[in-house]
């Protein structure tokens, strides 16, 4: 089992969710986050005073998947979330030691 974490542009969330559902993913968690990378921030102006906004809004998507499906999930997120502009985000994969479905007590692949 692997945890796939993706930080994407907020307006891409629904598109990515639909694409993942289409390849059989049954659940995920999305969190509104702020961050900056190469995109940096932007400036906003209030009554003539410029403010540098360093942290820009992003969505962090987390889902645990079977080893066999990891590459397909990562590729799907990557192709769906892409706008080809700076700031599209990142995806990374980490190992998961244990997973439990709280309601039934099921563990491993059955709990995904």
């Amino acid at each position: 089992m692997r945890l796939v974490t993706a930080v994407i542009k907020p307006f891409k969330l629904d598109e990515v969710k639909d694409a993942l559902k289409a390849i059989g993913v049954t659940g995920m968690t999305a969190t509104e986050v702020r961050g900056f990378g190469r995109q940096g921030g932007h400036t906003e102006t209030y009554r003539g005073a410029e403010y540098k906004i360093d942290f820009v809004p992003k969505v962090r998507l987390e889902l645990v998947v079977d080893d066999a499906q990891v590459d397909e999930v990562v590729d799907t997120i990557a192709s769906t979330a892409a706008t080809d502009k700076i700031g599209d985000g990142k995806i990374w994969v980490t190992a998961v030691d244990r997973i439990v479905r709280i309601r039934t007590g099921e563990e491993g692949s059955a709990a995904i």
Partner: protein
Amino acid sequence: MGLDTGDTAWVLISAALVLFMTPGLALFYGGMVRSKHVLGMLMQNIFAMGIISVLWSAVGYSLAFGGSGRFIGDFSLAFLNGADGITGTIPTMAFVAFQMMFAVITPALITGATADRLKFASYAVLIAAWALLVYFPVARWVWNSNGWIFQMGALDFAGGAAIHINAGIAALAVVLVIGNRIGHGSEPMPPHNLPTTILGTGILWFGWMGFNAGSALAANGVAAQAVVNTHLAAAAGMLGWLIAERKQAGHATTLGAASGAVAGLVAITPCAGFVGGASPLIIGAVAGALCYLALGIKARLKLDDSLDVIAVHLVGGIIGTVLLGLFADTGVNDGGADGLFYGGGVELLVDQVIAAVSVLIYSFVVTYVIAKVIDRTMGLRVDSNDERAGLDQSQHSESAYQA
């Protein structure tokens, strides 16, 4: 002249319209502060509706409109005893109500400059003392027929000097005493909710119809002219600000549209029932553009006038009060005077400048002393931990928005 029911109805409605401006001002300012201070700002504004109304009925009306003194009234009408006659063509009680709402909103204007750092109890003492020692006397000077500015012949239809210059310069005095917000100039403090500010702008604009046209104290041609002037000055003020902003900063902003409209409204306030034709457009546009440019004043002074009370109210008030000396037209209101452009010579212009400067100096000095005394005794500013935590938590033990 007997009692006129139409006049009475309009002034009573106007009193309600002006009352509505104070919560409007609260939202206008509240949207511009950071979210941890928004209740602190709203509270300071609506609290004025509480404390100033009580003070007004107890002694304020009497000090402003009782007796025969040139500088201050007396206590003959304390608790509104004896205020049951007729003033002009309306019940004196209608005039009491209408003027009460002016007294309420004027100290509330100051809160924009002192945002995010006043201790609540000290603020309560500050505006009570300010009403007693600054607003009630100045209202006397300007609006009571015994008042020295009134007798000099200076005009102030709805409060360019008595309200906007008065509160604007008072804001400067209080900021000089309390200092700048922690992080001012080094960390961003963007408005937390501009839609709220726009809602507040709409309420202010709406209420200003009563503020200015109600000051005719009659439902007549002057009141109708004041409604049109008020609206046109707000419209032209918005355009003036946006043009200046677009040229200088590159974008026409939502906050700029709101601020420009308010600047136009401020400037037309002293002029509303005394000018006509294209004058409200000129006054509004000049105010919009100049108030935008006046934003630079606080940067130059390194002064944290947080929400630009100086640029909008002080500068806007001065513009309106002085321009009235040029644009006043007895063809619009024969109870007024003619300005320089309408064949009246420089006499009115000089009177207007004297009125503006007198209110400015008196208000600055007395406000500074009041603020200093409160600061030395009970402390006017919250401590740094309370300021960082936000006024909502530290002063009121509340949060505006639950996570």
